[in-house]
């Protein structure tokens, strides 16, 4: 099966590979996996607490070209959006942008899961932080 040019581009020149400080309260980390194919994807966002805008996003994915391209594209899509806008990102956008074939759609689903997991981690961290601040 041939990869589309866009997949190859992201695969050969992945954007935003790396990691952010997991302990930083501004950082949300999403770690998801697809056991059957062994893909593991870590996606992190750094949110400006004042504006709610995602200022940075990093990923590291162990998996096939489509999984790497999906998460690479996801980090690009995330930057500059608010957390709520980011929650609205659907895997179909990734499928269309990368022209993923049906057998690789699960890679885009994984990327969407990773985004949601990262946001949920960020919210949990800050929800908990806010509560502690109130009780203190």
């Amino acid at each position, binding site marked *: 099966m041939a990869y589309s040019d866009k997949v190859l581009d992201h695969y050969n020149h992945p954007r935003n590979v790396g990691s952010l400080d997991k302990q930083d309260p501004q950082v949300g980390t999403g770690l998801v996996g697809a056991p059957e194919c062994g893909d593991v994807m870590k996606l992190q966002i750094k949110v400006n607490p004042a504006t709610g805008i995602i200022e940075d996003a990093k990923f590291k994915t162990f998996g096939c070209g489509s999984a790497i391209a999906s998460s690479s594209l996801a980090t690009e899509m995330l930057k500059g959006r608010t957390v709520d806008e980011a929650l609205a990102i659907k895997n179909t956008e990734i499928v269309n942008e990368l022209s993923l074939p049906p057998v690789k759609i699960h890679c885009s689903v*994984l990327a969407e899961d990773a985004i949601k997991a990262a946001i949920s981690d960020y919210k949990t961290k800050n929800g908990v932080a806010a509560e502690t601040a109130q009780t203190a």
Partner: protein
Amino acid sequence: MDHEHNCWQCGSADAGSLFCRYCNSLQAPIPDYYAFFGLPRTLSVDTDELQNRFYSMSRLLHPDRFTRRSEQERRYSLEASSILNDAYRVLRDPIRRAEYVLKEAGYEIGEQRSKDVPPELLEEVFELNMALDELRMGDDGVLPQLDEMRRRFLEMLAAIDAALETKFQRHDTRPDDGGKAEVLEEIKSALHRRRYIRNLVNEVDRQLSSRNA
């Protein structure tokens, strides 16, 4: 398990499962592994007893014993011997046995979504992949870490196997209509987890041996 049928040779009803109790002709083999061995459908199996049955049935069913019998019996003995070997290979191994029971009960094995792997395991898998990456780039400094991870995965496997044994007993002691399904569901996810970790260990071994090669 009851297996009542008429003998293909003499037509007697209630012929018996292996050989007709009236005319002693070999009957069509029962494809179900438990029924074939004449064992109850339990997840815990006495493997000594299984082995005894395997040896005695091997002798009874061996195609060499049927060279002078009818073509039908010669064919049945080949089929039966083949089922016997498959059934023994599956039933003597607790994992394969459980997979067989699940599959026969209509459970899908081997299909799952991302959420099935617990988060704490994902962390380990991610760390493992990072370490393997570094190993591939020639950094032998990660070897102790890989050894340690491999050891932890093997411990997890041992823990899963111990838990499975308990679940097997729980399954076997429940009545057919009283919550066997619930236990089978638990066993299914334990098997998935087990396979996933097994794959991780295999991957570590593969990478380590290709490095030594």
